[in-house]
């Protein structure tokens, strides 16, 4: 790779993206009903550890947050708090059709219909629930996005924080959350 190419990356960027995409630590938080597919993805039949994916205990130690399914407004408040505690670079994968357009619960008084307005999402996996093969293909797509350099949404969240906060505060009425000063 010569540095005369148009979309060239430096050697340092190449090595850092390569190492990030091959070791993804997944936050151990099952948000909704899609969390039933995570154990079967991690165990020996559809082994996810050969991609470097393993679980992390706390948000400070995690890279990827999996939003597996519907999000009630009660859960959304806690998920925002978890997402803001994760450190850059961080990625979000959204499972299922409930995150895309509301899914089965599109007319429920309690669940949100489109996840993109509240936290930034990198990869959507459709299905209800996606099978383990689909989950692994979602992780492979995330690896391609990281290698192409399109996954800097953690920094974009900080830049567009007022827009995200306005959307969140419209839904969560009793806003008793800490102010993060990154």
């Amino acid at each position, binding site marked *: 790779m010569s540095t005369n190419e148009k979309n060239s990356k430096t050697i340092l960027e190449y090595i850092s993206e390569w190492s990030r995409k091959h070791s993804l630590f997944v936050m151990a938080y099952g948000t909704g009903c899609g969390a039933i597919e995570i154990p079967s993805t991690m165990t020996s039949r559809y082994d996810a550890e050969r991609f470097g994916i393993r679980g992390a205990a706390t948000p400070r130690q995690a890279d990827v947050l999996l939003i597996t399914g519907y999000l009630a*407004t*009660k859960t959304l*408040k806690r998920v925002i708090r978890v997402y803001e505690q994760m450190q850059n670079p961080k990625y979000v994968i959204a499972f299922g059709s409930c995150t*895309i*357009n*509301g899914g089965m619960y*599109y*007319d*429920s*008084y*309690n*669940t*949100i*219909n*489109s996840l*993109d*307005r509240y936290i930034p999402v990198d990869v959507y996996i459709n299905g209800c629930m996606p099978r383990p093969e689909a989950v692994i293909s979602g992780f492979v797509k995330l690896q391609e996005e990281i290698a192409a350099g399109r996954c800097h949404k953690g920094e974009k969240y900080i830049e567009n924080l007022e827009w995200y906060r306005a*959307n969140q505060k*419209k*839904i*969560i*009425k*009793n806003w008793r959350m800490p102010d993060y000063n990154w």
Partner: protein
Amino acid sequence: MENLEKENNILLEVQNAFKIKGKVIRDRRVEVMVSKDMVSSVLLFLKNQKGFIHLAHIACIDFIEEGEFQLVYVTWSPEQKIHVMVKTRVDRENPVMENIDNIWDQANTYEREMREMYGIEFPGLVGDHEFILEDWDEMPPMRRDFDTHAYAHKTFYQRPGREDAQDVRETITKRSGEVIPEYAKKYSRE
């Protein structure tokens, strides 16, 4: 032909003690219609003297056409293996029902759910008003005149592309050639 002797015996014993209407629905299911004041006496009679020591569930049905809620107390006897369902009607405008917390402890949870989801009051009920929903200040959401579709469209951002979604009930009735009855048409979403 099933042997419904045990169920008929239970029904006769309850009807001899109280003057109430009842029916044996099928094997292992007996239902009894009670007025609101006599509910705790019937439940205590069943619990202490007939061996129906387990309260399985308290359910609520919204009869909006008649202006009443129907509460169903489902009890179970482990020796005879019969469910007895005690059904009462509560007025819908000002719903107040007796608290049976001192008979069975698990009634506390069911009654708190009724208070939050239907708005039925139980005087003397101990527990936080906020049970499942957080920061909820609209009308109780499980009542039938609460329009969840309109509320969801007003509150949450809808991703475009879903406008041509079909109603499930209309699609299935068109496909199988049935007709939706008149009393159900009012709640069609057209």
